[in-house]
């Protein structure tokens, strides 16, 4: 039971750390580009990005097998 309670605490402690870190990062670097969050027309490079990222992922995975 201590283990159970310990797991809850450790997990939420990790969540505190991660959340605090990410919030700090977002407040530092993220706040300036609100436009990026507005949904609408897709960006210019998205197609290439999408294909490139998925292709890279597949190749990376296959080369490991």
């Amino acid at each position: 039971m201590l283990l159970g309670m310990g797991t809850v605490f450790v997990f939420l402690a990790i969540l505190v750390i991660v959340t605090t870190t990410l919030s700090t990062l977002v407040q530092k670097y993220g706040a300036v580009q609100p436009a990026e969050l507005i949904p609408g027309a897709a960006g210019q490079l998205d197609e290439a990005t999408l294909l490139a990222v998925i292709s890279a992922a597949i190749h990376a995975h296959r080369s490991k097998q």
Partner: protein
Amino acid sequence: MDSVIQLLQDSGAYQLAGGQFVMILIGLLLIYLAISKGFEPLLLLPIGMGAILVNIPGAGFLAEPIYDSAGHMDSPGGLLYYIYEAGIATGIFPLIIFMGVGAMTDFGPLLANPRTLFLGAAAQFGIFTTVLGALALTSTGLMDFSLADAAAIGIIGGADGPTAIFVASRLAPDLLGAIAVAAYSYMALVPMIQPPIMKALTTQKEREILMQQLRPVSQREKIIFPLSLLVLVALFLPTAAPLLGMFCFGNLMKESGVVERLSDTAQNALINITTIFLGLGVGSKLNSEDFLNVETLGILLLGIVAFAIGTATGILMAKLMNKFGNIPINPLIGAAGVSAVPMAARVANKVGLEANPQNFLLMHAMGPNVAGVIGSAVAAGVMISYLG
């Protein structure tokens, strides 16, 4: 004449056993509490109705369908049989409810003050001590709870209905009715259970502590939070993934702002439909064999103990954090860590206002309040990981 006899034999009065009669009265009591006393009516009204229907002898609400050897249906099952098997035994209904709750939850106050997650963690202490309590009651020989039963009972202390139903459906289906009734009844009783404990464990001065105004939280942070919670669950506690995954999904639908029609549906039509059927299905577990036991008394007793301990440990954790941190926390908001959203946060606010009419704790208490939902879902994952 034979027909008359058959009709009379079919009549409920002829078949009604004492236990069923008592269970119908309990169903009526739950409906009375829901309507006249405002006890969690969204759940207790359907649960009470389910309890009445399932205890009508000869009505066949839990009848299993009968198939012939070729797989064709000879006789259909009862409505509550289908609802229970399709939605509760599978865990689907509590998960859909959790998605809808996620779509209604604002993590803003939690993100503005992430330390309140510790309060939501501390308040889960009631869950685990209750497990020990259930095992202790078993050791007295008065009741008979298995370890899985004890874990399902403990989760009542999580003060979160869908979590309790989900865990009970996996670990102790026979106790599901009593556990759900206890969980929702005590959630309705939070305004009576918590204030005495809050006052006993805090000084007037502590209750007067004013908290700093919360910083505004950007949409981007609110989008990132459910995703990072989900990734942490994936990495460290996958058995909590059903509950927290759907919760994060619902929250992401809301915060992303790009799927408003889905978010609206998850918060309205879908959660309402599911709540109706979840309540009826839970009520269908209120049969006399499973409910009219001394074990039910044990569940009711352990449930309130769990609530009380969770409230206490939430408050004590806040006091402990005040020892080490330099930003003061009003310990009353620790009590909101048990969940019971948003009732427990409102109670913290009310007790705070009594101590100091300028002390508005509501938003501050929402942080530990939603943290408590995460905390009890994590605890549920731990239980299922060990015992499921």
